[in-house]
């Protein structure tokens, strides 16, 4: 027995209307992706067109100069690497320890709630404020050398730490409680449980969050303006206390001098920065896949 309802014209019309709505939605979604990706493609195209010609060994190994033909990106790259080194050295252990403490050891009370809210807010503070803080605390109060990767790294570490804490807590929270029970039940202490079982399982998530936080710090310009890393530096920094620039700052400085023939340099430096960022994101994906435990 077939139900005559499904043979009626009204039913056929309703179904075709529904299918049309379905097609419309798919097109709309596809359109959104194509639109945003085409902007990215356009950006890449313009950068490659303008910059690829200037991307040679002398550009990669040279330092800043007033002459666009001899100006290179190595000084700024080395400054970026040193700054990232300081940032990572400080923000990774601090962030991971804070995440472990908050997730596994902290008592549940109003103080800890306050700490949580503060850390979440810290992650949302505009970066220029961190720059002001760095200027006030590290340079004016603690007398550290202006324009140095040390101060830049410390300032960016303050910015990156909350990102690592938040991603670290999420990764730790995602470890099934049954694993903690299992370890405790054979007589492992709390610290053994965390370091032998919880942390290794949370590590891929923590590393991913760290690398994404570091990538954000690598592209950061505003806070470094405040601590004087926009200085014109000709010699590449020899250590973390030497005056230096960083890649995004170099791009910013050169883009100011477009009329004097720095267009190619600006675009080439952007390519270098993008390669760095892509490499870091690639590393994040690789680490996540490599260490991920399947249940």
């Amino acid at each position, binding site marked *: 027995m077939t139900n005559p309802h499904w043979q009626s014209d009204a039913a056929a019309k309703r179904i075709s209307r529904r299918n049309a709505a379905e097609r419309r939605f798919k097109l709309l979604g596809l359109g959104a992706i194509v639109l945003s990706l085409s902007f990215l493609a356009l950006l890449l195209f313009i950068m490659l067109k303008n910059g690829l010609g200037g991307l040679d060994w002398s550009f990669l190994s040279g330092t800043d100069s007033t002459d666009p033909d001899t100006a290179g990106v190595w000084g700024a790259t080395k400054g970026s690497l040193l700054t990232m080194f300081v940032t990572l050295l400080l923000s990774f252990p601090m962030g991971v320890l804070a995440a472990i403490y908050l997730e596994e050891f902290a*008592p*549940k009370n109003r103080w800890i709630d306050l700490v949580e809210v503060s850390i979440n807010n810290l992650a949302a503070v505009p970066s220029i404020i961190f720059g002001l803080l760095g200027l006030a605390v590290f340079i004016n109060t603690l007398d550290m050398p202006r324009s140095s990767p040390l101060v830049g790294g410390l300032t960016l570490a303050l910015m990156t730490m909350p990102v690592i804490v938040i991603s670290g807590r999420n990764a730790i929270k995602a470890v*099934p409680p*049954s*694993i*903690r*029970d*299992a*370890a*405790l*039940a*054979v*007589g*492992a*202490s709390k610290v*053994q449980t965390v370091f*032998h*079982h919880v942390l290794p*399982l949370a590590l891929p998530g923590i590393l991913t969050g760290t690398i994404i936080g570091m990538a954000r710090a690598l592209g950061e310009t505003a806070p470094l303006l405040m601590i004087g890393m926009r200085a014109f530096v000709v010699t590449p920094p020899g250590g973390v206390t030497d005056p230096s620039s960083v890649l995004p700052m170099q791009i910013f400085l050169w883009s100011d001098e477009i009329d004097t023939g720095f267009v190619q340099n600006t675009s080439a430096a952007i390519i270098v920065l993008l390669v760095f960022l892509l490499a870091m994101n690639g590393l994040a994906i690789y680490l996540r896949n490599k260490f991920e*435990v*399947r*249940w």
Partner: protein
Amino acid sequence: MTETKLTARNVDVYYGPKKAIDNVSIDIDNGIVTAFIGPSGCGKSTFLRSLNRMNDTIADARVTGEILLDGEDIYAASMDPVALRARVGMVFQKPNPFPKSIYENVAYGPRIHGLAASKADMDAIVESALTKAGLWEEVKDRLSDAGTALSGGQQQRLCIARAIAVSPEVILMDEPCSALDPIATAKIEELIDELKENYAIVIVTHSMQQAARVSQRTAFFHLGNLVEYGETSEIFTNPREVKTKDYITGRYG
């Protein structure tokens, strides 16, 4: 011929202001299997977890009264919960092997407690624990495979081997078969029967048939109270309390 291993005297367990266990007193003997039965939410698992202080990990859980292991108060300040849990092992409802190799799963406990002086010692401990758990023949050629790759029943026996490896005196089992099929369940029950020679075993179960099959004593919990406790054969054939009778005849629960 049996001796008392664990004694609870007037034990209350609270979760915050809520009383989950109300004035429970019970003696648990060595060398036999004691089953805790009762409807969901009656507090049997809560009480079980207070016997090795796993409730310590729950922030607002509080235990009052006395629980004695060989006459020693396990909630005394002098009792280290970490050492206690090595003496009172636990097997959980859902098999929870570490996402490490089969060998590592068993070796972890002995290693952190320093029970093996050499690699050969450790190998012997692992083999003996897996043998007692009835898993050795199935896994001896693939000890380096992931414990999580085993079947559900094998995982649960691995968890039992992991508990045995630290030479506990008591083994607590919290519905160890509820995630397993009937064949795997039968194997675990057989294993429990063999293990009772050397340990005091307490098993929480939802299945009255299971309680009847594996245990020598049964405790019936209802709404946080210990309603009746006695020989399993007595409880199931001739219960003293009406509530027990209603429960075991399937009137509720």
